[in-house]
């Protein structure tokens, strides 16, 4: 078991197999004394639990992933089709869970994104990036700034120049 400690001194225990999903933890475990906890200086307890949730569920999903059958002989054709079905169903289950998992507030999305980067969890990083991109698509620039609480730091001339150059992309 591995002990993790958040910036607000909350600790959580995770199985080693789960912890290894994070490349950062993988390297930390290779170096440190297994008795001690691994500090996560950038991550609060709430975010830590959410990330551990991701790692635990991913490990569980991996262990349940159906085997693909690659045999091409005609007798096994039925089995090949069944295996394909099973794999598709599994992928659907994972996708559904991920959508529900990513239904979070903007603040949590931000913390998860940075947390996934800090812990080198590529799967979670992708999920967050995908979610952020989906919040950008279909919005005008003003709407994007509102969603992400961003201040327009361009000078009026800079902004006008850029918009004029690519005018077609800005018309609604």
């Amino acid at each position, binding site marked *: 078991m591995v002990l993790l400690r958040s910036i607000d001194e909350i600790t959580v225990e995770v199985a080693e197999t789960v912890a290894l999903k994070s490349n950062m933890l993988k390297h930390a475990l290779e170096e440190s004394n297994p008795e001690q906890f691994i500090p996560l200086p950038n991550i609060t307890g709430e975010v830590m639990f959410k990330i551990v949730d991701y790692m635990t569920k991913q490990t569980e999903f991996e262990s349940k992933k159906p085997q693909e059958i690659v045999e091409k002989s005609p007798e096994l054709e039925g089995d090949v089709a069944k295996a394909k079905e099973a794999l598709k169903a599994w992928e659907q289950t994972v996708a559904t869970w991920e959508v529900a998992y990513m239904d979070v507030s903007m603040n949590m999305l931000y913390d998860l994104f940075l947390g996934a980067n800090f812990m080198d969890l590529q799967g979670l990083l992708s999920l967050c*990036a995908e979610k952020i991109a989906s919040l950008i698509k279909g919005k005008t620039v003003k709407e*994007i*700034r509102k969603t992400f609480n*961003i201040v327009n730091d361009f000078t009026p001339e800079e902004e006008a120049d850029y918009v004029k150059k*690519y005018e077609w992309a800005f018309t609604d």
Partner: protein
Amino acid sequence: MGRDWQHLPPELLQVIGKRIPSLAVYIRFRAVCRPWQSSCSLRPDHLPVQLPWLMLPYRSDGSNDSTRRFYDLAASKIHELDLPETRGMSICGSSHGWLFLQKGQEMSLLNPITRATISLPPFPGPLSTFGINPENLFENRDANEYAISISPTDNFMVRKAILTSSAHDSSCRVIVFTYSKWSLAFCKIGDVCWKAIEFQSGYPWGGDFRDITYSNGFLYTVSPFAAVTMYNLDNRSKTLLGGGVNLTRIHLVEGVSGDILLIHDKPIYVNRFLKETKHTVYKLSNNGPEREWIKVIDVGQNVLFLGSHHNALSLSSANLQSPKWGPNCLCYDSIRKKWNPQERFDSWYNHNIKLASLDNETVTDITADLGRFQVNEHWQRSLWLTPSLL
């Protein structure tokens, strides 16, 4: 406490940028604030090939107007772009997001999105080819780079231009198919002259090739009876492959997995009135040395786009993220002509964009009528363009 999305680390902003497949959304993403703009390149290499725009026909002579109109299939609307670089120029082709412009001997490339231009050597060059037998000049390995001469009666208008890769790749070559006796030539960007590939002495209008395309390092040409010749521009070799379909209205296009496809279009006249066009697709078989054209009704992941005069391209439906676009369909600029006994040489055509499904042959209108135009030297014809920042 709110989070500082504005000042996310640049590498994380890039991770987000890479998840944006639409050109328009990517451009807006860079307009949000300074840190977002500076972290994400104006020449991103992650954007997939975009759904094309159709450049609409316009009257090209006697006008100072440089507003060009493009129908954007993704946004379902017409964009107006001011392109003064195109004034007085013929736009002969479109490849990898660049328009090929020609005025007499002057040739250049223009990217209408970025307004970048690249100049190309004048066609043909100032020197003549003394001492080289024009019949086998492509395979003449002793021939150094030479320029091509013309006679005053030669018509060197470009029929089609292809870029072998993105224009900013150092290995990019520009291949032109012209009405000249020097019917095929190529150059690398930055070269001082064109290199001839084929010389057609038999016909005044530039030989009996019908169309060309490029795939996986080889240039392919097709002649009536659809005989295919394959050229290797590096080692200057050419191979005649099979052929055998007796068709003339043919357009070559490279499929998304490198297949060579041939689209045959057949205009349908009803009471002498051009009403519709029917398309058949053939694929060049890959098996054995005797390649042949096989009629196909399933082009797999390909969504084909067909314009006029050799303008054709293909995209993968997997990248288009919308069930509307294929797979296995052909989107074309459909022209119609009302019969008018008064008109003889200056007929007016109308057009709109249609989508034909190749398996069940249904045809749907993608747009309403896009306006009328003529087909003569005063008018610039329509062309498909894949908008790109590269």
